[in-house]
């Protein structure tokens, strides 16, 4: 499909939005697209003394990198161990299944009790949110490594870290990568939600909440658009890497 055709639905939504905002005629309920565009066109401008959209977005991204990075550093090695050893899997699987369905935001009160309001509790919530998708995919990826690949490696004397680095990791990388992509998506949602908690003083989620208190609905909408665009942007990068690096998986019947 031609790329500009993909823009049609977006233009359509803009049109509906424009019509609706004229009909409603109340900027506190639905601001006009142009007023939102005005906010977006000047992303480095300070908003009501709480910093610019750009600065707050950078701050949110930084928090996600911390929380998501920690989650990956823990979940991938842990997932490899669980995926490699049946016994450990049977041992920890009930625990994983128990914790997995708890939504990250249900951890908020505990996070506040443990870390108080601030960076640590936000990072903790992001960590919890992205840990499980990464863990589950890593376990799955490692478990699904073709047995013949491992036995071929055994034939050529591969053991220990060499087996891990040259066979198990590359073979499970596509599935682990999917876990990272999903995990990042969750992390991004978590940071925005966590920043809306009372007591937070920065971040794109905070900016949205703050603008709500001041009736700046056009900033709210602009913030939402920024959140969406960053989310898509990262996802596109993940998918591009997937396509380049893991092409073999789809081609491999």
């Amino acid at each position, binding site marked *: 499909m031609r790329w500009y055709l993909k823009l049609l639905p977006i233009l359509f939504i803009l049109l509906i939005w424009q019509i609706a905002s004229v009909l409603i005629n109340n900027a506190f309920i639905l601001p006009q697209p142009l007023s939102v565009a005005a906010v977006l066109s000047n992303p480095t401008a300070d908003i009501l003394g709480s910093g610019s959209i750009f600065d707050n977005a950078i701050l949110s991204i930084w928090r996600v990198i911390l929380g998501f990075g920690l989650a990956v550093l823990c979940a991938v090695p842990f997932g490899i161990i669980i995926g490699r050893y049946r016994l450990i899997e049977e041992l920890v699987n009930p625990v994983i299944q128990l914790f997995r369905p708890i939504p990250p935001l249900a951890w908020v009160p505990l996070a506040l009790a443990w870390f108080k309001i601030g960076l640590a509790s936000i990072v903790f919530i992001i960590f919890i949110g992205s840990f499980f998708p990464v863990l589950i995919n890593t376990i799955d990826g490692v478990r699904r490594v073709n047995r*013949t*690949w491992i*036995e*071929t*490696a*055994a*034939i*050529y*004397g*591969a053991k220990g870290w*060499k087996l891990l680095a*040259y*066979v198990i990791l*590359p*073979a499970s*990388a596509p599935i682990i990568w999917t876990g990272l992509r999903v995990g990042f998506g969750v992390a991004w949602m978590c940071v925005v939600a966590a920043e809306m908690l009372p007591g937070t003083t920065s971040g794109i989620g905070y900016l949205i909440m703050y603008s709500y208190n001041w009736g700046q609905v056009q900033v709210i909408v602009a913030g939402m658009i920024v959140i969406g665009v960053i989310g898509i942007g990262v996802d596109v990068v993940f998918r591009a890497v997937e396509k380049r690096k*893991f092409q*073999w*998986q789809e*081609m*491999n*019947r």
Partner: protein
Amino acid sequence: MTVTISRVGKVFASRQGEPLIVLDDLSLTIEKSELVCILGPSGCGKTTLLRMIAGLDHTTSGVIDVDGVAVTGPDPRIAMIFQEYSLYPWRTVRANVEFGLQMRGIPPEERREIVDRNIRLVGLEDFAMSYPYELSGGMRQRVAVARALATDPAVLLMDEPFGALDAQTRNRMQKELLRIWEKTKKTIIFITHSVDEAVFLADRIVVLSPRPGRVDVIYDVNILRPRDRTSVEFAKLRRDVLELIDRLEERQ
């Protein structure tokens, strides 16, 4: 190297009751530089036997040794080519051929020359930088052969390596294998379902009986190479072996 299989038995514990006796008291000696083909009904334990020679499975009883040294696990003197597709799809042809050398810790400069030589040996120079998914079935098996040869094993185990190929490709691969074998003088143990293939390739054909597998008959193939499939002696041996296998299958 000489591979000696003495009184080997293999029993699998099955979940539903009775243990499964796959091989029973099987003895066989394969001489240095010999090309032996193993035939037998499906499920008689051919793959199991090969896996035990390769050190991937343990024998339940008996011993397998190579030049007098017992096989207890994967062994650098032995390489195996699997029945199913075993290339690493994320590696190029070159990198696949290089794999064994890399695992054995051979330095990169040394690897390059060995890899080039073996890729040339199987005639894939033009595909060195291709990925397995870009190759045909026959080319993939040639990569697997090159990968095995690169580590210079004395014994090459091949489990129906050409089973999935069409008749023409298969014939070409057989000729290539003979050429490589005559050049490298490896000991080759080759499993096949095709009597034709066995008669074409083998110095000796070993026919296993239905489960529990043991050596039923051994044929010495004294037909001069290159063998002519249309010759009378070729046809006669092929008929004899086929008849025997038919009888074995009826007994099953």
